[in-house]
């Protein structure tokens, strides 16, 4: 911390409230507060059960309120008091204005959705609200009082907790230890942890949020994604959070898990918590968001109080600002595609393929010109099937046929030689080579194609061919020598697809191809999949987003617990099919015994 930052911190802490912001978290104000010593403000007492009977109706206090009572675009017809407000905040990084004069107000008992494409400034805004970064302009108000956060800790002290996309739990500590991490109640003059006190404090909350007593003592890493979210929410609640910022909480959750998370968000709202909720998925908003704020290019576009009047299409229009993309358009034109008219040869056939215990007796075929979707909840074995076809794992039993020939695939390298390519699910950790240029990322899977005598790389040829792919796939970059990690997620994904196409595959497997990329980029990814199969390729698409899967796929097999539990026709072949009905059918197959 710089000296001036330190002084600001001191000043703030004295003007707002008595606390020691510079003390180390482990032994600092938190512990003193936990022991009930330091907190003078009754609404901030660290007593979880209080929260149940006393909905925070904290009145705006402090002299700043009067002079700032001006109408901001976020003044909407809600009754809850404003807990957290940003007024005209801006943030610039070298080379970019990430946020420009944005105002948002979050009220008590409100679920406030924050929408925007990638690059719209959502992350920057929540960074500012949660104390991770300081705005260059504008001001933050908590309970109507101007505040400056020097770090995330200070924001937490004011009851603002943020839950990020990436799980930030210590995987090897138990749930209980995670909840109280760094803020453990102590006994015996602070030498020992007060285990009983911890359990007493979380008891009411765990029951309410469906966490069992056994789970409290499990390592956090052993819980599923949903339970880990719940733990983070509890962590915030135990310490009296009144504002929860959720950064894409549903990414990585399955559909039924999302539903229970939404129930929990409603519970939180009912007890007076204000929730600021960042999401990419417009279908989630219906019936849940009270207010929707849309950002575009770092600017505030709209704050909508009457959320019932909005449709996904109208929101996309606000987010994109260009011509209306309807969600149907995003998934692609079903009729206008120039379908593959050639022979529908079988490209891949799996016969009784098993790898115990995750994959059990899988039979499927994919033909040229066809997109096969694989649906299922996490852990159903979808990615494992892809890995088996790619040769990344060994089969225990069964036979794979490629182009009608029985093959044994012992490594991904062999799979690529046979004409199989994979777009992996985790782009950052499993797909991109961050320090490599676009060219090198594209050529890496088939260096023979651009090598003289299979050994020495012909750089000119390599660059030329890679540049062709970059152009064809519409990757936005100023140079093909740019490092791939400087691109946006959507463009990175297109480069990964280019890498696969570069190997001229017969079968292309897409594992969660649109995870974490924006609406416009999704549309382009779908187009690339269509182009590939319409020119005679065969594709397998694994996706947890059912609307996407039903629109893109010709056929969908549903997996449950390592087995195929059923097959349905996708709506790309069947114009009469209702996507919502299809989705219900798939969910039924994915989670319980076959309905039929």
């Amino acid at each position, binding site marked *: 911390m710089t000296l001036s930052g330190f002084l600001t911190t001191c000043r703030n802490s004295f003007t707002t409230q008595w606390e020691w912001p510079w003390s180390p978290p482990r032994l600092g104000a938190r512990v003193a507060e936990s022991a009930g010593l330091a907190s003078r403000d009754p609404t901030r007492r660290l007593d979880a059960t209080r929260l149940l009977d006393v909905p925070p109706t904290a009145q705006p206090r402090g002299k700043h309120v009067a002079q700032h009572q001006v109408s901001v675009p976020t003044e909407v017809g809600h009754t809850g008091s404003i807990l957290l407000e940003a007024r005209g905040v801006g943030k610039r990084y*070298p*080379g970019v204005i990430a946020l420009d004069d944005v105002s948002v107000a979050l009220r008590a008992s409100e679920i406030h959705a924050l929408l925007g494409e990638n690059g719209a400034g959502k992350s920057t805004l929540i960074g500012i609200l949660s104390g991770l970064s300081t705005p260059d302009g504008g001001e933050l108000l908590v309970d109507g009082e101007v505040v400056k956060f020097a770090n995330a800790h200070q924001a937490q002290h004011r009851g603002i907790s943020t839950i*990020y996309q990436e799980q930030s739990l210590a995987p090897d500590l138990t749930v209980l230890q995670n909840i109280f991490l760094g803020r453990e109640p102590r006994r015996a003059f602070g030498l020992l942890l007060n285990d009983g006190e911890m359990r007493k404090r979380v008891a009411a909350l765990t029951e309410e949020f469906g966490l069992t007593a056994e789970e409290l003592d499990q390592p956090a890493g052993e819980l599923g994604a949903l339970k880990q979210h719940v733990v983070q929410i509890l962590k915030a609640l135990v310490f009296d959070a009144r504002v929860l910022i959720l950064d894409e909480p549903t990414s990585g959750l399955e559909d039924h898990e999302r539903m229970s998370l939404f129930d929990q968000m409603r519970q939180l709202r009912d007890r007076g918590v204000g929730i600021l909720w960042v999401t990419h998925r417009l279908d989630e908003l219906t019936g849940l968001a009270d207010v929707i704020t849309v950002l575009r290019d770092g600017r505030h576009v709209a704050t909508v109080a009457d959320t019932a009047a909005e449709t996904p299409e109208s929101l996309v229009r606000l987010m994109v600002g260009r011509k209306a993309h309807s969600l149907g358009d995003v998934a692609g034109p079903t009729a206008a595609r120039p379908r593959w008219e050639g022979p529908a040869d079988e490209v891949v056939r799996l016969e009784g393929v098993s790898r115990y215990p995750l994959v059990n007796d899988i039979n499927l075929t994919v033909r040229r010109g066809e997109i096969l979707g694989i649906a299922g909840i996490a852990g159903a074995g979808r990615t494992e099937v892809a890995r088996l076809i790619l040769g990344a794992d060994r089969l225990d039993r069964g036979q794979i046929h490629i182009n009608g020939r029985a093959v044994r695939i012992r490594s991904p390298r062999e799979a690529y030689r046979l004409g199989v390519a*994979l777009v992996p699910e985790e782009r950052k950790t*499993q797909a991109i*080579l961050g320090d*490599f240029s676009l060219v090198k990322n594209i050529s890496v899977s088939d260096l023979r194609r651009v090598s003289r005598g299979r050994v020495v790389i012909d750089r000119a040829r390599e660059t030329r061919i890679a540049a062709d792919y970059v152009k064809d796939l519409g990757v936005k970059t100023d140079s093909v020598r740019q490092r791939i990690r400087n691109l*946006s*997620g959507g463009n990175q994904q297109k480069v990964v697809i280019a890498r696969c196409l570069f190997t001229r595959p017969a079968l292309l497997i897409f594992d969660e191809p649109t995870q974490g990329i924006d609406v416009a980029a999704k549309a382009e990814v779908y187009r690339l999949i269509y182009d590939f199969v319409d020119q005679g390729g065969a594709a397998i698409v694994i996706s947890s987003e059912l609307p996407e899967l039903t629109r893109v796929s010709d056929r969908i097999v549903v997996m449950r617990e390592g087995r195929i539990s059923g097959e349905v026709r996708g709506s790309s072949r069947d114009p009469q099919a209702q996507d919502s009905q299809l989705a219900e059918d798939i969910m039924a197959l994915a989670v319980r015994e076959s309905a039929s």
Partner: protein
Amino acid sequence: MSARDRLARALMVEGAVVAVVFVVIVVFFAASSPVFLTAGSLRDLFVESVPIILVAAGMTCVLVVGGIDLSVGSVVGLSAATTLLSLQNGLPLLVGILIGVGTGVLVGFINGAIIAGLQVNDFIVTLATLSIGAGALQVLATNTQLTGVEPGAFTGLTSNSILGIPQSVLIAAVVIGVLEFVLVATSFGRTIYAAGINGRAAHLAGVSVRRLRLQVYLLSGSVAGFAGVLLASHLNSVQPGLGSGYELTAIAAAVLGGVSLAGGRGSVWRAVLGALFLVTLSQGLQLLGVDPLWFAIVTGASIVAAVAFDRAIQRLAGSLLQPRKPPTRPPADGDESEASRAEAPSLPTQA
């Protein structure tokens, strides 16, 4: 492009800084000692640096793939011993050299097979083979008289010159040139970098990462073995403990040259420059009459200073390159914002 931009880009060129530091100490020693730049002393300098340069070059290949090879220290000594032993027993020169290199290949194969095949931690495995190799050298050197051969073709590898340059220096230059070419221009080299940047992604993209790891340890072992052969021809005798410490010097040299210990970054010629820097330093200190007891301290301090200087310059160049025009486009956000995050002040993670 302004002069400022040009300066910044020149500084950003990888290896520029270590080259500058190298030139600075050369100039310093040349100014302080009249004999430093004489032909004889330069010749000594290059002959002395041959083994460590080779080891550093081989080590670079391992480091780039994301591994580490500590065994090279004892490989150098052991190869020197096996070569000398073969030649003393009357085997032809070429066979002796092959036996020396073969020793290195053998150790490299053991390393690679255990690390890639059984997936054991590379640090532990090569630490173990370092110890085993040192022990084997001890046994060999104590039980046999490795006092050297009659001056001839073998010692001539070092003492004979072509166009005034010692043969061993020329041979080393060729080996380094080949390694640099392999790493930069061949598909094998390209996949080494790919595996070092992200092994998991490279594997799923069709790179045989395990086979690559085995090959890289073979490469490192054979180059270290060859370094041992040339060292034996230079010294024409082998003591127990010969070559010990080479592994750490080679790693220091590679890091000085900008090779990343995390893998994926670095180049052979820059590691060679780093090794030359270290040898020049110790030779220069000798010429200045500094007590050899102080060498290790001075060397250690200068490694830290050089690396810190390099990082500081990189940061300076980065700040020179920042645009001063008003920006027009917001950064990508969400999980795509690596570019903007890299530029943002380092943010604490959630407390």
